[in-house]
């Protein structure tokens, strides 16, 4: 069943949804759109392509406390101060971000499940939003993701001609739609047609995007060594600065580091995102496994396109959102790597 509401009345919907639990939306602040809790007068930007940091940040935050130890003279006490937060709603998630949750689930929810991530995942209700105007940096199509309708959210939504269409998918989606049911009106045939037209338009635009037909076929388990030893990695990584931008904006990067912070009278152990681009990534007592930037650069893309798919029955660890294309200081990204080392069809494009 699908419902609809005028886009002008969306703030009422947000207010109602945010009444009992926090509601995260793409909100613009200082010219940048991020998922932030809704508040009266927040600049909600459903038209922005996607946020700087992906929705991953709500399930796998950049930093979160794990546990704290307090020392009294020579006695130690342990304090569980992890904050997995309360139930929250999440609207305006693009199909690519929604897909990234599945990729992260395979990592964090596999036995033994990451309790912090699992708690947040259960707390979250995801409402996806179709991409009205995909851009040239998007290549979700090349990874089999339908920008017009996401298969991963608890509910799907579209915006067309001043109407906001909302279709619950999962049970959790049904429940959250119920909470805002009074504002919604049921859709009829004409609305279904409008949504189909929107999907067709989006499909048309996706077709014209330059990287929609990116061929990743060569990135398969059996080619691993061949790709690994390819001499062109050196040339591709020559300009890489080793900063963490691509990994910190990427929705599917799942590596993290556990650090201890001396708070004066104890230790606060916390988890924070880590970047394989950093020189101290996976630094062990024996030393650093990947000593030069070429190896670190290769590790990032091999993991995304070869290692992860090998362990997850072919599912690439990239959702084609294009953030790394936009944000990399030296414009080196996964599309260039894919085109250089990817399938033959790329050559003639």
């Amino acid at each position: 069943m699908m419902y609809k509401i005028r886009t002008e009345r969306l703030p009422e919907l947000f207010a109602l949804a945010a009444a009992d639990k926090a509601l995260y939306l793409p909100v613009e602040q200082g010219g940048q759109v991020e998922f932030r809790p809704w508040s009266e007068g927040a600049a909600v930007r459903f038209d922005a392509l996607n946020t700087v940091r992906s929705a991953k940040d709500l399930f796998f935050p950049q930093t979160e406390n794990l546990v704290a130890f307090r020392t009294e003279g020579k006695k130690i006490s342990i304090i569980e101060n992890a904050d997995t937060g309360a139930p929250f709603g999440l609207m305006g998630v693009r199909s690519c971000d929604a897909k990234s949750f599945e990729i992260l689930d395979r990592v964090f929810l596999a036995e033994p499940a990451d309790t912090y991530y699992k708690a947040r995942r259960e707390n979250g209700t995801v409402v996806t939003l179709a991409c009205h105007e995909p851009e040239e940096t998007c290549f979700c199509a090349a990874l089999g993701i339908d920008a017009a309708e996401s298969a991963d959210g608890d509910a799907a939504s579209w915006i067309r001609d001043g109407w906001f269409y909302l279709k619950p998918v999962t049970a959790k989606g049904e429940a959250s739609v119920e909470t805002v049911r009074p504002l919604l009106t049921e859709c009829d045939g004409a609305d279904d047609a409008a949504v189909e037209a929107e999907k067709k338009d989006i499909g048309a635009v996706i077709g014209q995007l330059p990287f929609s037909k990116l061929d990743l076929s060569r990135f398969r388990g059996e080619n691993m060594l061949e790709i690994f030893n390819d001499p062109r990695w050196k040339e591709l990584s020559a300009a890489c600065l080793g900063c963490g931008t691509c990994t910190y904006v990427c929705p599917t990067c799942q590596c993290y580091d556990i650090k201890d912070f001396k708070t004066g009278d104890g230790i606060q152990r916390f988890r924070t995102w880590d970047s394989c681009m950093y020189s101290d990534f996976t630094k062990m007592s024996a030393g650093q496994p990947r000593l030069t930037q070429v190896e670190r650069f290769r590790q990032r893309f091999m993991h995304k396109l070869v290692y992860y798919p090998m362990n997850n029955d072919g599912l690439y660890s990239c959702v084609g959102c294009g953030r790394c294309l936009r944000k990399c200081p030296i414009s080196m990204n996964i599309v260039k790597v894919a085109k250089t080392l990817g399938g033959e069809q790329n050559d003639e494009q």
Partner: protein
Amino acid sequence: MQEIFGRIKKRAAELFADGTVTRMVGWQKGESDYDKTPAVFGPDMKGFVYDGFCGANLSKYLINLSKVEGRTLVLLKPCDSYSFNQLLTEHRIDRDKVYAIGIDCNGKLDINKIRALGVKGIRSVAEEGDEVVLDTVYGSKRVKRSEVLLDRCYCCKGKDHVAGDEFILAEKRVDTTTTDRFELVKKLEAMTPDERYEFWRGELSRCIRCNACRNVCPACSCVKCVFDNPALGTDSKANSDTFEENMFHIIRAFHVAGRCTDCGECSRVCPQHIPLHLLNRKFIRDIDELYGEYQAGAEVGQRGPLTDFAKNDAEPGATPDKGGKK
């Protein structure tokens, strides 16, 4: 801009041919027209291009390249040449392993400003005179070049090169300077402390600690940064508290104070578009006002203001406008 590219390519080919250089650092064409990647080219110079989007400052790459056998040809825009001199002053680049050509620049384009004007789905970009023509999935758009330049071009430090073995100058030089580079700094200084605190909290709270600003900055090129060094006790990898955000940016700006050439790279690469240049320029303005005009990298071998002193320096607490004058 096209004719300069042609002359550069011709001159580079000659230098390759007569063996003065064994490699060249320039910009390589990316997937889209607007994305350019700094790259090291061999004699064939495959994919080398020089156009309105080649904003990246190449001098930092010379730190490692000048350790490799053979001489490297580098192309330096006027604002990059200051960074080149500063790195030479700090003995980070081996001068006789580098052959520098100063190339003219009429202001570089900022793709984010283009996007901010609502241009989406860009398929191709062409520069025609003082306009940029964009063919997008949603129709073609024309944008005035002077509206979409990088921030630093609006207060360009001038067209004169301060370094280079030879120069390739454009016939027609377009002056893109429209504002005084300290205008925003002065506006901030005029605010009350609370307003400034709100402004900077708003800006710095967006920082995702990706270190792009640090890794791109020619002045911020330590072998091992204090923030990556657990042995020093100041290592921190994440902004797990508002304090870390403030400390990272205060210390980064302080460490480059007196050495920052104001090349604007940090603001260009920040994924969250935090106006980091306003921090560096605050130090530059204070130094200019309190200790005398100083442009880092103006010539090799300068003595930086923080490695110098005057017997009658102003006492701490002196600010540029409030009696800072000696």
